[in-house]
């Protein structure tokens, strides 16, 4: 068995898991979530193990699908995305097995979760612009079905419709941008050859148009302001574990896909400046939108927008000046965001699971007052996640922001200082809505809350794992940087194969 077949082992495990989980779900009487969930978890563990094996080989590894051309290229960026995707997928799967997210349709829910993970893994593995788009679509289509999963709830269906229409249009713009690149280079889409082919062509006109199409197209899925309007509804209305999957994985992966597609564009086109402006806009607008929210899940959904902004801003600074530290910061924030947002949304799901039988509305901060005394695990996880999201050291969210600030400060003169101030200022601004969350969770309990049971063990395990990730990544960022550093180099220096 040569090393080359190992290259597609994560994808085979995940797509095999899609089929296996579906069959396991169909063959179970009473539609129990246990068997499809176990199959899905096994597939994810297999994919994670094969990713680790790939990490120990010398990268990059090329693998030709069907014996012709290059189909898959394993780089450090692939390992990075694959690791995050499998870890988040595992936590989401375990959480969905213990809660009622799969809504009596476990035979569909777990395959969709696995397909989303497989799409993200594929984004990392893809060797050309077209297969990048194909895997992006796999991820997108799986989430199209996850958002309106509770088809009996009118608001969920409406949020789903909005999400599907906006993202289908966005995907079309992205593939149109890719077709423009195809036309511009006369048929070259492979990342290794593309950078050279684009530099050799004359006349930047069509290329600039293609860059705009790519940024806007991937930007819809990444929720870059002003293309973010689907996000609050989709995150709020989807099942808790699906929100965690979207916020922790799908949206940041769309930004990485955008970065990977733009990494081949030659220096003449000002990609960096465009991303910088969009990133600054996204974090500022996102923070102001989140300020007035009282609904906890919606507040967390809105607070995803500024974090998209930080990552886009980091990539923008990186492309603008070619600073290593900004690329490191952007990808480190992708990793940290997975733990922080994953933990927060899963914990909100656990609280919702306990409150499901209680009369009245139970999503606003007022109704959740004092939940920290009854469900210390879930509320504690939210508290840690919220502090980390605000960038309080020494939690995971601090380091990504620090590297992005350091990167911005490397831009010479007053502009660099200004860019750094924008990031730091936004971090302080975000405390304005994160601190009331902390206050409410540990307020004096309401009547409905004071009779709650503790967090169910099966839900507590993934929540604690995500929280532990947030804390450990903050205390020992070097572990994260081992994974992030080489991946950032791939993004920065292009995906050419260095012999």
């Amino acid at each position: 068995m040569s090393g080359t077949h190992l290259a597609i082992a994560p994808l085979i495990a995940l797509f095999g898991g899609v089929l296996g989980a579906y069959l396991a779900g169909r063959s179970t009487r009473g539609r129990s979530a246990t068997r499809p969930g176990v199959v899905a978890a096994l597939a994810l563990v297999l994919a994670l193990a094969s990713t680790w094996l790939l990490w120990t080989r010398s990268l990059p590894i090329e693998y030709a699908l069907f014996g012709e051309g290059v189909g898959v290229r394993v780089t450090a960026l692939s390992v990075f995305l694959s690791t995050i995707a499998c870890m988040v997928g595992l936590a989401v799967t375990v959480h969905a097995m213990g809660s009622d997210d799969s809504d009596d349709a476990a035979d569909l829910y777990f395959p969709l979760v696995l397909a989303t993970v497989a799409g993200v893994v594929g984004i990392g593995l893809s060797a050309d612009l077209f297969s990048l788009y194909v895997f992006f679509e796999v991820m997108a289509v799986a989430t199209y079905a996850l958002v309106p999963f509770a088809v009996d709830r009118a608001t969920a269906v409406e949020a789903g419709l909005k999400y599907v229409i906006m993202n289908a249009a966005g995907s079309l713009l992205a593939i149109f941008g890719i077709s423009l690149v195809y036309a511009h280079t006369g048929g070259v889409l492979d990342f290794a050859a593309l950078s050279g082919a684009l530099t050799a062509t004359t006349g930047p006109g069509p290329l600039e148009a293609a860059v705009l199409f790519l940024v806007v197209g991937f930007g819809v899925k990444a929720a870059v302001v002003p293309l973010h309007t689907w996000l609050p509804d989709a995150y709020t209305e989807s099942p808790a574990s699906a929100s965690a999957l979207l916020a922790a994985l799908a949206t940041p992966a769309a930004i990485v896909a955008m970065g990977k597609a733009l990494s081949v564009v030659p220096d003449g086109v000002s990609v960096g400046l465009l991303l910088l402006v969009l990133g600054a806009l996204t974090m500022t607008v996102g923070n102001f939108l989140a300020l007035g929210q009282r609904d906890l899940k919606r507040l967390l959904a809105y607070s995803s927008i500024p974090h998209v902004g930080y990552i886009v801003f980091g990539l923008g600074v990186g492309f603008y000046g070619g600073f290593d530290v900004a690329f490191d910061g952007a990808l480190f924030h992708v990793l940290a965001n997975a733990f922080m947002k994953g933990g927060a949304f899963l914990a909100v799901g656990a609280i919702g699971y306990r409150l499901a039988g209680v009369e009245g509305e139970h999503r606003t901060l007022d109704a959740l007052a004092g939940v920290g005394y009854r469900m210390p695990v879930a509320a504690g996880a939210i508290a840690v996640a919220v502090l980390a999201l605000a960038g309080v050291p020494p939690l995971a969210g601090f380091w990504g922001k620090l590297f992005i600030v350091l990167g911005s400060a490397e831009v010479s003169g007053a502009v660099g200082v200004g860019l750094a101030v924008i990031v730091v200022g936004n971090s302080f601004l975000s405390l304005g809505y994160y601190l009331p969350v902390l206050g409410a969770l540990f307020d004096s309990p309401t009547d409905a809350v004071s009779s709650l049971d503790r967090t169910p063990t099966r839900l507590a395990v993934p929540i604690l794992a995500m929280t532990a990730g947030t804390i450990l990544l903050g205390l020992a960022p070097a572990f994260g940087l081992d994974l992030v550093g080489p991946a950032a180099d791939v993004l920065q220096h292009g995906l050419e194969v260095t012999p």
Partner: protein
Amino acid sequence: MTALAYGVAVALLVLGLASIVAGRNVVKTLIGVELASKGVLVNFVATDPAGSQGIVVILIVIDAVVVAVLLGVAVAAYRQYGTLDLDALGRLTW
């Protein structure tokens, strides 16, 4: 000839997007998605008729999947609201 094909591609994309943005009915939105994706196909075929065959076939499959999912959500919305008019949905703020 190629210039004409590129023109047609852009025209299809613009028509499709206009239909997505302006269409009040979900079915019109769906037709817009289809039109715009055909524009993309024309762009690929015009550039390299022989070399883009694989890409075009895969894109047609992806289109079919996206449209199927969109129709599924539209049916679910019709069951909940009894209408396909996007303006009539309004329990969430747009």
